[in-house]
């Protein structure tokens, strides 16, 4: 009895609704801004951090690779951490859906912060997996890079948003 009561207490009283028109407008604006930022600025700072962290992890795993600028050189090929490798536009859509949720600003800030962190970590994992595949099974790299690894960013973004939405209450 007390168990079911505590379970009921843990669940949010009323989940926050999302305004579809606000989502449509903010998603369009933010994705356009993200695409422009990607084209104009090249996202060099984020690419540098992603390359550095990924290279350190790969080295810690005992793999012999070299870091050259914004690339990691493996036995079989050179992997560029390109501007397209940074899922800024997916993050922009996640921010748009968080902004369109009718909840408090502090909750929105938590959502954006958690979303940014989870997407950065997921992207580093994606790059590390890519390097490991390129080093161990080079023939599989192109197929996995264009199919499976592409799914990481949208999956993590949607997953983080749904987990956040579980705790966001109507303001």
């Amino acid at each position, binding site marked *: 009895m007390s168990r079911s009561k505590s379970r009921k207490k843990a669940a949010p009283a009323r*989940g926050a609704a*999302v305004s579809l028109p606000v989502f449509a407008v903010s*998603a369009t604006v933010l994705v356009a801004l993200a695409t422009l930022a990607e084209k104009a600025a090249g996202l060099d700072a984020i690419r540098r951090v992603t390359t550095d962290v990924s290279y350190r992890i790969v080295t810690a795993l005992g793999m012999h690779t070299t870091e050259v600028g914004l690339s990691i050189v493996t036995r079989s090929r050179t992997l560029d951490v390109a501007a397209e490798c940074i899922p800024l536009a997916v993050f922009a*859509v996640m921010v748009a859906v968080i902004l369109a949720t009718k909840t408090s600003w502090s909750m929105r800030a938590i959502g954006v912060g958690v979303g940014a962190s989870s997407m950065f970590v997921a992207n580093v994992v994606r790059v590390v997996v890519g390097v490991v595949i390129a080093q161990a099974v080079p023939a599989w790299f192109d197929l996995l890079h264009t199919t499976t690894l*592409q*799914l990481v960013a949208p999956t993590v973004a949607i997953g983080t948003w749904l987990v956040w939405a579980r705790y966001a209450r109507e303001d």
Partner: protein
Amino acid sequence: MKTERRGYGVRLAVASLAVLAAWWPVSSAYAWALRWALNAATGVRGHATLMGTLLVTPWLLPALAIIAASRTSARRRVIGVCLALLASWIVDCTVLLSAVRFAVSPAAQIIASRTAQQVLPFAVVLVFSRGRPQSLWRS
């Protein structure tokens, strides 16, 4: 009854596996329908190269798994998955046709397709849950 009591995580894992298993036949049919529509609309055959880079559907996989795992009737879930694929197909057709018909620059094509790719999965989940994503895991 057992299915109803299953945790949302288990439902999502089962639905993800089902979506992945159905992916090759569904994507083949999807690509065939897209090629047919483009050929019919433009009279030009062989848009395979364009389609390789612009397909929205792989990005839709997480959204399809979420719809398939939602705590609603099987009929509504099937309709939701079909409508999500149809919406994706319409977006793909629009992007590809505008590229072919109006000679849109490659840069503009990429921006349009990427915007659609990234917005569509969220939009599909939002529309399916009527703006309340929490309803997906609450019975």
